[in-house]
């Protein structure tokens, strides 16, 4: 069962079975805007079709033996009135579409965001932030653009296709022939055209992307390129990529140049012209009707030129919707377990024959160790050895594939998730701070903390001094006006956060490096102070932290290569001994 970790109070989810249904279910909520869009499209096209009819009226008024100037005057007035009214309705159509588009962007983004908040931490640790960002900005924008100009133009131009079909028979039933054949031919030609064009466009995009990526790479790595004297080869490779791009570009241009609906339009105008003249000669229609009819056919010009663009807009909108739905519908494995064990934590942690696989790849195997409350544990090993996975099993970011992890003797899966996580604090490697004041960032886990509490926490984390050195002190907004914090400073702010929430179990993924000895001094003090009195896991590169930990876990390719105190490891492990030997 997929249970969300967070349920938004004001989100009415759309129909998530398919992208089209989803977009439609959202669009349906804006009835008046929809009415405005559709009625605007009909009226706009109808009033555009009125002009040829009015011209016909004027024509017959003037060509009769006694010209009727009063009628001519009225026709002019009616043309103005009809076109002004048309403008108003067209605005209604455009703005209706715009409004739905903007609202869809707003609502789908909110639905996405709420669903993201409901996902497990496992989910979030699997997805790069960049990917989610692209969904929350670009893809929702695609849905917006799909409505306006996409759907707007399609609905609009569909009416322009329809009007001659409807109006022509009122002039003479036989005159429906040309519009009918045109509309059918137009559809077939358009479908074929798009089938040809879409892969070609995709090809151009891909080859350009490749060209660009390689170019960026070559320029960013220019020092390496020059250092290795490889300029000529880079130019050669750039030329190859250029040639590939050119081929794709020319191919696309070729398809575009052959755009068939344009030819169909020319044919329709010619045959319509012939047909109306023949009917006139046979005495079936009046001269003024010939004029009206031929002007009417010109309405086909608009859909012929515009549809292309509109259809591709709709297809990329649906593609965006599909990507969003994939994210929203992704299952989230962990549940809240609200009825689980909830109690103040002591901080004892045991791993019993733990194995963990990630995407089917085994990451950790045969892990067994015991940590007593209050101990400091250093987790050491190369990148990819499984350090991060190990600590993420403790707060159930991931669940084990075999064995069990116990906290205070209780399997973490039997804990109430909220209670478990509230008492565990994780300070991640790439620390994220909100662009708010430093005080607010420190108080993030404990809203309503007093300034005194915040300062005390900062002091314990050795952050007070540098915070005070900022012009606005604790009220400094992170990231604003060039206030950039170094990795070490961010880490200490995160530590201050932890002092404030006072977790029973602290997990610190520490990979910052101090450039100078004085900063190193402060970081060491802050970390040792944070570790005092609570169980602490440190993923660390710092020899001093390894040296003074109560328990050192050496991971090698997912297994425990060695475990014990510093003295025990010196005796036990050759690799460990070698590290310290270099410092003698």
């Amino acid at each position, binding site marked *: 069962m997929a249970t969300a970790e967070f349920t938004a109070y004001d989100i009415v989810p759309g129909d998530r079975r398919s992208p089209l249904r989803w977009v439609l279910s959202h669009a349906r909520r804006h009835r008046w805007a929809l009415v405005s869009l559709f009625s605007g499209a009909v009226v706009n096209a109808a009033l555009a079709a009125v002009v040829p009819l009015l*011209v016909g009226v004027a024509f017959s008024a003037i060509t009769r033996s006694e010209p009727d100037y009063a009628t001519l*005057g009225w*026709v002019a007035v009616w043309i*103005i009135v009809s076109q002004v009214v048309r403008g108003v309705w067209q605005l209604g159509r455009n703005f209706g579409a715009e409004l739905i588009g903007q609202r869809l962007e707003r609502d789908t983004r909110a639905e996405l965001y709420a669903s993201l908040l409901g996902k497990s931490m496992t989910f*979030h640790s699997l997805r790069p932030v960049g990917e989610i960002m692209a969904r929350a900005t670009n893809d929702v924008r695609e849905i917006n653009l799909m409505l306006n100009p996409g759907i707007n133009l399609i609905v609009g131009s569909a009416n322009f296709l329809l009007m001659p079909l409807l109006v022509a028979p009122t002039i003479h039933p036989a005159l429906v022939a040309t519009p009918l054949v045109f509309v059918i031919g137009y559809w077939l030609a358009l479908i074929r055209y798009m089938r040809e064009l879409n892969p070609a466009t995709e090809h151009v995009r891909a080859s350009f992307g490749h060209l660009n990526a390689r170019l960026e790479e070559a320029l960013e790595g220019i020092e390496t390129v020059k250092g290795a004297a490889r300029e000529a080869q880079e130019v050669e490779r750039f*030329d190859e990529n250029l040639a590939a791009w050119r081929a794709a570009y020319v191919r696309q*241009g070729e398809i575009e*140049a052959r755009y068939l609906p344009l030819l169909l339009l020319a044919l329709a105008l010619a045959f319509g012209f012939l047909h109306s003249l023949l009917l006139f000669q046979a005495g079936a229609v009046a001269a003024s009707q010939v004029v009206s009819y031929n002007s009417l056919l010109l309405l086909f010009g608009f859909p012929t030129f515009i549809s292309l663009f509109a259809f591709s807009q709709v297809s990329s909108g649906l593609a965006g919707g599909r990507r969003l739905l994939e994210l929203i519908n992704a299952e989230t494995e962990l549940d809240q377990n609200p009825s689980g064990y909830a109690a103040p934590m002591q901080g004892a942690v045991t791993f019993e024959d733990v194995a963990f696989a990630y995407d089917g790849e085994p990451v950790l195997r045969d892990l067994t160790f015991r940590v007593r409350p209050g101990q400091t544990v250093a987790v050491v090993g190369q990148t990819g050895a499984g350090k991060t996975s190990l600590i993420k099993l403790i707060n159930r970011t991931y669940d084990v594939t075999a064995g069990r992890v116990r906290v205070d003797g209780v399997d973490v899966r039997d804990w109430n998730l909220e209670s478990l996580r509230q008492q565990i604090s994780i300070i991640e490697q790439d620390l*994220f701070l909100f662009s708010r004041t430093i005080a607010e960032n420190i108080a993030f886990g404990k809203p309503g903390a007093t300034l005194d509490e915040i300062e005390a926490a900062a002091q314990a984390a050795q952050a007070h001094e540098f915070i005070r050195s900022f012009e606005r002190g604790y009220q400094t907004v992170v990231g604003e006006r060039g206030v950039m914090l170094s990795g070490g400073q961010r880490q200490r702010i995160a530590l201050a956060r932890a002092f404030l929430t006072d977790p029973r179990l602290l997990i610190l993924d520490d990979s910052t490096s101090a450039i100078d000895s004085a900063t190193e001094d402060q970081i060491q003090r802050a970390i040792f102070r944070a570790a005092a009195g609570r169980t602490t896991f440190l993923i660390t590169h710092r020899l001093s932290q390894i040296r003074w930990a109560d328990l050192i876990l050496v991971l090698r390719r997912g297994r425990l290569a060695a475990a014990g105190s510093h003295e025990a490891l010196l005796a036990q492990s050759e690799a460990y001994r070698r590290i*310290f030997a270099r410092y003698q």
Partner: protein
Amino acid sequence: MGFFGNLDPEAYDRTYTDAQLVGRMARYFAPHGRRLAVIAVTLGLTALLDAAFPLAVARGVSALAEDPGLDLILLLFGAVLLAGTFSWGVNYVRRRLTTRTIADVIVHLRRDAFQATVAHDLSFYDEYSSGRIVSRITSDTQEFANVTVLVADTISQIIQIGLLTAVLASISGSLTVALWLTTPAVLLVAVAFRRLARYVTRQGNRAMANVNAAIQETVSGISVAKNFRQEREVYAEFLAVNRQSYAINVRRGFVLAAVFPALNAVAGFSSALLVYLGGLSAGAGAIDAGAWYLFIQSVDRFFFPFINLASFWSQVQAGLSAAERVFALIDAEPVVKQTAAVRPAALRGEIEFRRLNFRYSSKETVLTDFSLHIRPGETVALVGHTGAGKSSIAKLIARFYEFQSGELLIDGQDLRRFDLPAYRRQLGIVSQVPFLFAGTVLDNIRYARPEIAEADVERLARQIGGGEWLETLPDGLHTPVGQRGAKLSLGQRQLVALMRVLVQRPAIFILDEATASVDPFTEEQIQQALDLILHRSTAIIIAHRLSTVRAADRIVVLRRGQIIEEGNHDSLLAQGGHYAELYNTYFRHQSLEAIQAFGAYRRAAAD
């Protein structure tokens, strides 16, 4: 100027006159002379054919006054059919040729721009971000091409309007004047809307930049919020941002939604006027019905070109400035200049700076009257505060920059006389954050020497930590490193970069040591790789690690571009001078004593 205002100008930007620019552009089009001629002919034909269509229809309408014979009907039909079909065909030929010409010109321009770019020394890259250079090579060349298409289309439309005007004027001067007086009103409305749209768009963009940053933040903050169970709070924050974004966009959308309706209303006035005035003339017998019809239809034909004209100049301007940016990139003068192209024989690795002066362009002097002699095979560690000149020394040896006076001799020969690629093949350079190219570990190790066999690489790799680092890579040497090496850890990237040098066997090794921390096991392997390299080349190391300075044959202590102390670690430390100060600032915490001493903090915290 585009909608978003100008980009900041850069120092290598030159100002070209429009004539110079057009001349330069013409040179790129010159090789396609025959195609251009055909395109010109098709442009004229298109204009003629498009004007012929309404004329034929108008002639048909005139014929309605009396009884048109079947012959005339078929003749007119044939004319319309032929004009339409032919117009499509001509259009096809023109677009096809245009695409090819544009593609070739862009390819040519991009190649020139890229070649010019890689020929520059590093002082160029220090000043101009690679992102901007990339956009000049890719987007600006494209924009330039787009403008040429735009110009061609506009010319065709102007010819068409001209032809139509001439025909109309021959029928009725006064009606032509009326047409000319009313339709350009469209232009006024279009220009006014453009101003308004630009204003709301600019307002909107400014606000949207904030909103996007806020959305980015709330999305990035999700995991932190979950960690502290503050979902409700970030959700509220997100909603506020999301609503703000909506409000801004709707306002902007309203203005943009109004453009075409307004233009249509204006065109309605024009049509009405011509229907009325034309009707009066026709009624009075001054023109016939067909001519009247022609005038009415012409409103629409004038309509679109005039709307396009509203944005024509600004687009042409944008195209010209894009061209200017591209040409400025191509024309920028390289600073590093070689006086000869001597291909050096196998170097021994002796380096001598003789009374050399160096500064980066237009900045204060970095090295003054600097002399330093490095023996072949020696390992020299450079230490000093930031800005002391350590990396300048390394970069001058690599000939990434030009020095202003003095001499730099390699094996007793003037560095400026070497053929640079040949010289650099004997250098091994590893920067602080090693750069890897997308590809496999093996590709990157062999980057400088693609001809080396895989087995040789493998054998070398096994010399480091028993090859354990290879086993931690999922596919060993064939593991893809990802964009810029993102799939490898920093430590692994350093190992790969050092392997690159090991494979290359250079005479001179230049290392800017990393400051970022690496896990102790990988660090140990990096040290092993380093030991292997130092053994067999002259080495210049910008040192950040205690173990490196200790292992160096000679430590050169720099302050403000001057050598103030020289010697080995122990003797310099004993002197108690600048080196001792540097040691206390940068190296002390790496010592075993410090590691032992930090235990006191642990005991203090526990109390």
